[in-house]
């Protein structure tokens, strides 16, 4: 399958958070994908996967967003069953792959649709879900031609909870980072949540922040062990931890994983560059 892949067309699902708050992450992802010979398409009608609403119990609302999402990407795939949708978030990918089918099935019944109609929605969701792949998973399948030797840059990789537990992606992203010459610095309680939890971070901000601070405490130890940057394949977690660091006036670089890979591809990755990226918001 991979070999036809030289010419593969990838549909990009950027996610709402990256679209609004970290577009350079998606720009970097496009660069990485194109450099590896893929054609990238961006279905411009896409918005959000609806996970915020779903997790909060607002399933009617989430289903509206889910149906929109499915329509947009079905149209983009245009019946190509080999086409792939690359999602720039393990959490959103998990929402689509694991939650859409039952969500839409139940919602259809709740709205009074027939069981047949409900099943049809479920199957549509399952079909499109099978074509979704999380960005680092896609990247791991691409064997880069000339991998750099050690870059001498220590990174802490935070694996998002849904990526880990719903998609079952565990060490893959760290292996990718190592393949690309990063030294991955281990972090205590790596599998513990960052405390984000979607709107939980807003409604229960005290608890959410306490959980985040614990992650930052562990990060502090990793920094002593040489970590120079925090990265992840989920911008939800990164935005949360980065937002907390920013509030504490801590300039530690927080960078989306595709940005690291794009810089490595260009041979431009340096600690100074990382720090600059972290300070972009100050400059703007």
């Amino acid at each position, binding site marked *: 399958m991979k070999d036809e892949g030289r010419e593969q067309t990838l549909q990009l699902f950027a996610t709402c958070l990256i679209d609004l708050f970290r577009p350079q992450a998606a*720009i970097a992802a496009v660069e990485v994908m194109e450099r590896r010979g893929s054609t990238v398409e*961006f279905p411009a009608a896409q918005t959000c996967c609806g996970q915020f609403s779903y997790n909060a*119990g607002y399933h009617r609302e989430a289903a509206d967003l889910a149906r929109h999402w499915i329509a947009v990407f079905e149209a983009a795939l245009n019946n190509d069953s080999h086409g792939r949708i690359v999602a720039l978030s393990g959490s959103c990918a998990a929402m689509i792959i694991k939650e859409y089918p039952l969500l839409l099935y139940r919602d259809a019944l709740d709205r009074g649709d027939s069981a047949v109609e409900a099943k049809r929605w479920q199957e549509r969701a399952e079909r499109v879900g099978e074509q979704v792949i999380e960005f680092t998973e896609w990247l791991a399948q691409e064997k880069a031609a000339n991998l750099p030797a050690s870059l001498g840059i220590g990174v802490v990789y935070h694996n998002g*909870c849904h990526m880990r*537990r719903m998609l079952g992606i565990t060490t893959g992203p760290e292996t990718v980072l190592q393949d690309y010459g990063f030294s991955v610095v281990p972090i205590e309680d790596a599998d*513990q949540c960052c405390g984000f939890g979607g709107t939980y*971070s807003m*409604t*229960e901000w005290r608890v959410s922040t306490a959980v985040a601070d614990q992650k930052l405490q562990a990060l502090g130890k990793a920094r002593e062990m040489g970590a120079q940057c925090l990265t992840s394949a989920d911008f939800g977690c990164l935005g949360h931890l980065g937002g907390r660091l920013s*509030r504490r006036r801590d300039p530690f670089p927080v960078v989306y994983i595709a940005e690291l890979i794009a810089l490595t591809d260009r041979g431009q990755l340096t600690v100074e560059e990382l720090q600059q990226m972290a300070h972009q918001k100050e400059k703007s």
Partner: protein
Amino acid sequence: MAGQLPIDSRPWPVRRDQALQDKTMQQTIQFVTRRVANAKVAAYTAYPEGERLRQRAVGVKRRSVENMEEHLAVFAQQVEAHGGQVHRAKTAADAIRTVLEVAKNHGVQRVIKTKSMVTEELELNRAFESVGIAVRETDLGEYIIQLAHEKPSHILAPAAHKNRAQIEALFDQDAAAYHTEPPASDDILALTQYARRRLREEFLAADMGVTGGNFLVAETGTLVLITNEGNADMVTTLPPILVSVVGVEKIVADWPGLTEVIQQPALSGVGQRLSSYTTMVSGTRGTDQWEGPDEWHVVLLDNGRTLLKDTPFEDVLSCIRCGACLNVCPVFRQVGGHAYGSVYPGPIGIVETPLLTNFEVLPELPSVLCTLCHACGEACPMDIDLPGHIVQLRKIKRDRHMDAAGVTRSYRWWARFWATPHGYRRSIRWARWGQRWFVRHGRIQSAPGLAGGWFNTRDMPPVASPTFHEWWERTRGKGHRS
């Protein structure tokens, strides 16, 4: 009929803030939960059979719950054939009445107890004390919190929130009250030795023992108790009257089933292949027998449990109270058990409390104590879909209009806008216009409405210019295609 659970009636923000400020509690809870969670992982790694056993145990529990009523009838028959008596209690009040009656019939003055979540659920100690019967918890952790007049903060480690200095103070007080030698120091060994000495007197003097139960075996009429301390053995062998109060869901159909599940509480709860003591009671003592009770009463408690039968939440009845879901929960690790306000804390507590009581108490639990990280679902040895249930409970709350109107309105408008590309663009224009008042030093530092809470402790970058959508449109959009 909905069950009744005792609750801490202080509102959630009060419980939460107290927990977040209690640094002693946080330190101990962090340490204990991590130690046990790691021990569990290590135990499964070192025991290749473990995972296979676990999967079979899930099957046994599910099948046993499916035909619960049938098995309970067989259990009652068996126990009664071997000298015991079985009482069914629909509600907490029924169970209390039964237990007190047994005590009264025998003129009981001193009761000793093993650790049992069900008796916490009944607040049985209070009931005993209200009729002048002295009751003593014999599990070390329970003994400590009994002295402190507190509730357990963890289903397996009830005193996990207390440190040694606090415990020494409690023991000193107790020693003064009982005119006995206080502990030699706040050394953990010295504290434990004090408890051994003090509780030994109580064991030998008690005239009634009360236990919970980890499993009930229908086929043989057996009650299985699992402890590490050995207190359950004391309670079942020493006093002449034994009362076991057990939830109906603890039933296992037959003996082969028991052999499949018996290792699970220890394996997943503390990372041991079996706990130090597994005690099995299958009847009163025979003639010419030394030990064991003359009378044995088993009280089978429902208290809302059968409400869950034949619902999507039925798997909750497979819970073996191992505590694994508590130990891995990032929120539990921060706030400890008391913040939940329910006898059942942690992920299982936020699912079970509203379900058993039909949302009559603590309806906020599913919303305020979970980030949906799914760690509990991964840890639960009984494959209970805790994260899925938490989402469904939030949905039930929303469908029953239990959320604040403003919150509901926000979600509704949010979805209305973002379900179309046009609405999405419009919301971005508004956000850009609105954020001008909130940006400081290139960051948003405050905001109104649902999102406001975020900015109390965290920044956010302003909506980017261009967004990725806009960047794509400019660089790759229709006009730029060659």
